[in-house]
C-alpha cells in the first residue's frame, strides 16, 4: 500500500500519522509538501491534524484552497482512499469532499481527552475490521469539532449508513453527556457516498501503541493495508 501525507504550513500531526503507518503496518508513506506540484501515485492520501495556516480563518478554509487540494479532489474522484483526521476533516468539509461543517466546540474550549466511540459503519476499507457496535477508545484534540449539517443531509448520512463513528458512553449509547463538543447526532466521523473518504475528529494515529494509550487505531490501519494491498 502506498500512502501520501499532505503537509500544509501549520500541519502538526503529519509526523504522528507517518510513524503510526510505519509502526503499525510497515507502510512507507511519502510526505507531500502542499506547495510541491504533483501528487504521487498512491492508494491512500492522508490529510493530517494540526492548525493549517494557523486556522485564523475558519478551520481548514485556507488549506482547502491550496493548489494541491485540486489534485487530492481529482484523485478521490478516481477512487483513491482519503483519510482526513481532525484538521484534515475540517479541510475536507471546506473543500466540499464531505458534507457538513465543523463549528467551534459547544464549550468554546479546546478539548484533549480520550473519548468512547461506537463503530456505526463497517462497510468501508477503513472500518471493515471493526465490528458494528464496537465501543472503542480514541483521543480527540480540537477546538472546532462540533459537527453540523442541515437536517436533510444528516438524514441522508444516517439512512445511507455513512456515519462511521459516534461519541457514546461505555454501553454504546450516544448520550448528550458522552458528546464532547456538541456534534449533531454525536457524529465523530463520516464517510462519503462512495465510502472512499473518511473524515473524523478523533485521532486514530495516537492509539497504535499500548504504552501511549491503546491499540484501537491500529485496527484501522490494518484494514487499510489488507484492503489496499
Amino acid at each position, binding site marked *: 500500500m502506498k500512502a501520501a501525507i499532505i503537509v500544509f504550513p501549520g500541519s502538526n500531526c503529519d509526523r504522528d500519522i507517518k510513524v503510526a503507518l510505519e509502526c503499525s503496518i510497515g507502510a512507507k508513506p511519502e510526505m507531500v509538501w502542499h506547495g510541491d506540484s504533483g501528487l504521487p501515485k498512491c492508494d491512500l492520501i492522508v490529510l493530517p491534524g494540526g*492548525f493549517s495556516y494557523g486556522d485564523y480563518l475558519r478551520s481548514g478554509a485556507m488549506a482547502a484552497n491550496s493548489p494541491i487540494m485540486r489534485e487530492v479532489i481529482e484523485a478521490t474522484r478516481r477512487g483513491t482512499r482519503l483519510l482526513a483526521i481532525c484538521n484534515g476533516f475540517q479541510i475536507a468539509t471546506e473543500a466540499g469532499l464531505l458534507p457538513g461543517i465543523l463549528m467551534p466546540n459547544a464549550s468554546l474550549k479546546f478539548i484533549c481527552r480520550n473519548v468512547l466511540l461506537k463503530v456505526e459503519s463497517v462497510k468501508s476499507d477503513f472500518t471493515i475490521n471493526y465490528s458494528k457496535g464496537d465501543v472503542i477508545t480514541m483521543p480527540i*484534540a480540537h477546538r472546532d469539532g462540533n459537527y453540523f449539517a442541515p437536517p436533510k443531509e444528516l438524514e441522508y448520512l444516517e439512512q445511507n449508513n455513512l456515519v462511521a463513528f459516534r461519541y457514546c458512553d461505555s454501553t454504546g449509547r450516544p448520550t448528550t453527556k458522552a458528546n464532547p463538543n456538541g456534534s449533531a447526532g454525536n457524529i465523530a466521523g463520516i464517510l462519503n457516498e462512495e465510502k472512499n473518504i473518511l473524515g473524523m475528529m478523533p485521532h486514530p*494515529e495516537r492509539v497504535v501503541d499500548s*504504552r*501511549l494509550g491503546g491499540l484501537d487505531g491500529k485496527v484501522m490501519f490494518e484494514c487499510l493495508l489488507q484492503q489496499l494491498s
Partner: protein
Amino acid sequence: MQNFKTSNIRAEAEIIAAHGLSEQEYNLIVKRLGRNPNITELGIFSVMWSEHCSYKSSKIWLKTLPVDAPWVICGPGENAGVIDIGDEQAAVFKMESHNHPSFIEPYQGAATGVGGILRDIFTMGARPIANMNSLRFGDITHHKTRHLVSGVVSGIGGYGNCIGIPTIGGECNFHQAYDGNILVNAMTVGIADKQKIFYSAAAAVGFPVVYVGSKTGRDGIHGATMASSEFGHDSEEKRPTVQVGDPFTEKLVLEACLELMETDAILAIQDMGAAGLTCSSVEMASKGNTGIELHLDCIPTREPGMTPYEIMLSESQERMLMVLKPGSETNARKIFNKWQVDFEIVGKITNTKRMVLKQNDSIIGDIPISPLVDDAPILERPYQLQEIPKPILKLEFDKDNESLFGTLTKLISSPNLCSKRWIWEQYDHMVMADTIAQPGEDASIVRIHGTNKALAIATDCTPRYCASHPETGGAQAVAETWRNLTAVGATPLAITDCLNFGNPERPDIMGQFVGCIKGMSQACQSLNYPVVSGNVSFYNETNGESIMPTPTIGGVGLISDIDNIAKTSFAKTDEQIILIGETRGHLHTSMYANEILGREDGPPPPINLDQERKNGNFVRSLIQNGNIKTCHDISDGGLLVAIAEMSLAALKEGRQIGATIYMPTDNIPPVNWFFGEDQSRYIVCANTDKTDNLIEEAEKQSVSTRVIGFTDSSTLTLRNSDAISIDEIMQAYESWFPAFMKD
C-alpha cells in the same frame, strides 16, 4: 567624530525617570559615550540595564548556585541549559516567567510566554518535545481570579496546541498573596544532536547578520522595563506594552530554522525576546567580543514610519537574529522562502566592539558594546534573612472533630489539591505521539522519539514553606522535583529555575531571595543536581503587597528504559503498601493547617538532604530494577491524600482498587500521622512475598520503611472501621474546578 545629528542636550529628568534610570545611571551613560545619548540610545541603555535584562539585583547570588556536573554541556548564560543524555543526544531546557504581561492581558501574556520559551529552545538547535507550566493565581474569591485562570489557560493552550508541542504537565495553586500579581512560569524541553548545539556568540568579523521571522511592529515596546517595576493602580494602562502572539508563524520559523540548522550555514543565532533587536544584537556581539552594524532600513516592519527607537525596542514576537557564514545566504533564503517567512540581511559583524545603527546611510546610533553589558550596575542589595519560626505550642491540632475521611474529602476537594483536569484537557498533551505519562503523575514522561528512552519532567515549589523559612523552602522546592522524578523511576540530572519575588529594594524581600538561593544551593549540591538555566522575576508586587517567595523549579531526569517506570496508580489488590521515609507528623504550614485550621504560621517541615538522597536512591533502584511498578511521593496533604491519589489514579485507568490502612501504632496522633507533611517520603507497593526482602534491603541502606496497609477492593478503609468509597473521593476530587469555573 559624530556624523549623526545629536543635539547633545541632556535628557530631561522625566524622560530619564520614565526609562527607569537613575540620575547616576544617566551620568554613567554620558561618561561612557562622551556625550549625551540621543533618545534611541537612551532607550537601548534603559532596556539593557533593566533588572529584567541585566539581573542587577540577582547576579551576585545566582553565581553561588552549583552549575557543574559531568553531564552538563552548557550551563546558565545561554538561551537555555544543555545536558548530555547519552547516545549523542542532548536535552535542552529552560523555564521563564511571563507574570506581568499575563496579569495585564492573560491570553496574550500567557501565549507569548509559551512562544518565548519555545524560541529559547529551538534557537539552540533543539526540537521542542514538551511544554510544562507552573501557575499561581490569587484567592478564589478575588474578582479577577476566574477571568485570569480562563485567559491564561486558553492562552497557553492556544499557543502550544497550534504549534503542535504537547503541554504535558505542571501545577496550579491559589493564594491571596497573588491577587495583584499572578505567576505564569512556562518551561520547554527539547532534544538536540549533541554535536550540533547552536550558540549566540558572533565571533567572525564581516559575516552577515540576518533577520528572520515576523515583521517588527509597535507592540511590546518597553516590556522589559515594565517587568522591572512594581504595579500600581495604573497597571491596566500598560496593556499596550503586552505583545501579541502568532503561533502559526512561530511554527514556520521553527521548521525553517531547524531545516537550516541541518546545513552548515549558521555561525550564531539568538531569538528576539525581551528588549527585542537591542538585546539580541548586543548579546551576540558581546559574547563574540566583536561589534555589530545594523541597517534599520532593512528591518522588515509592519507599518511605515516606525522610528529607530521603536524598531530597536519593539518586542514583537516570533523573530530571530542569525549570523550566517558568507556564501550560505542564497540557500538559507530559499529555505525561509519555502516556509514563507521573512528573511533579510540587516547588517554585519564588525571589529569595532560598538553597536552602530544606520538609517538612510547615516549613523543614528553608536554605542560601545561593553558598557551596555558590563557596566550594567551590579548591586549588592541589603538583605535580611529570616529565622525559622518557632513551633506554636498551643496549636490544638487534634481539636478536629470530624472523621479522618471527612477531612480527607475536604482536602482533596480544596482548590489547591483538587483535580486540575479542567486545565490540562485544554492542552494537547498527546501530539507528537510520545507522551508516556499524562498530566497527573508525579512527573510527566515524554519518550525520546524513536528510542526506548524517555525524559521525566517535574515542576514544583511550595511557596508557603518558602514564606515561612526561605532557606528550607528553597531546598524543599529542589528536593521535591528530585523526588517527583525519582518516583517515576528517572535519574534526576539537572534543573532550571524561575525565581519569582517581590521588590528587591526591600531588605526583607531580598532576604527571601537570598535565603531561597542558599537553600537551593544546598539541595543542588547534596543531590548532585545542578542548575543549568533560569530566570529571575522581581517586582511581583502591587501597591507594596508582595507575592510569596516562589522559586519555581523545573527538574529533568532520564529514563533509560520506558518499560521500567513506576506509576501513581494502584496496580492490583492484595499488595502491601509500604511507606518509605520517616514520619514525625509535621503539621505546621501543611495543607491541613492551611485548609482545615486556616493557619499559615509555624515552621516548614525540616528537610535532611542526606536522608533525602538515601531514600530516593533506594526507591529509584527498586523501580529501575523492575521490582516495583507503583510509587507515589508524599507531598501536599500528606500520607492519606497520597494514598487516595493512588486509588484515584487506578480508577482513571479503569481499576477499582482501594486500600485497608493501619492506624499509627506509636505516639503520633492520627491527624499528624495522616496529614503531616514530613519530607523525603514515598509510598510503594509490593507483593507480600517480596516485602520482607525490600524492608531488609532498605535497612541496609539506612532507609526507614513501614508497612502501612494493603490494597483492597473499592473502598479506603481505616482499621478503626471508618470507610469511604473511591467513587465518593473521585466525586470530591473532580468537582471543585469545573464548579468554580462555572462549566
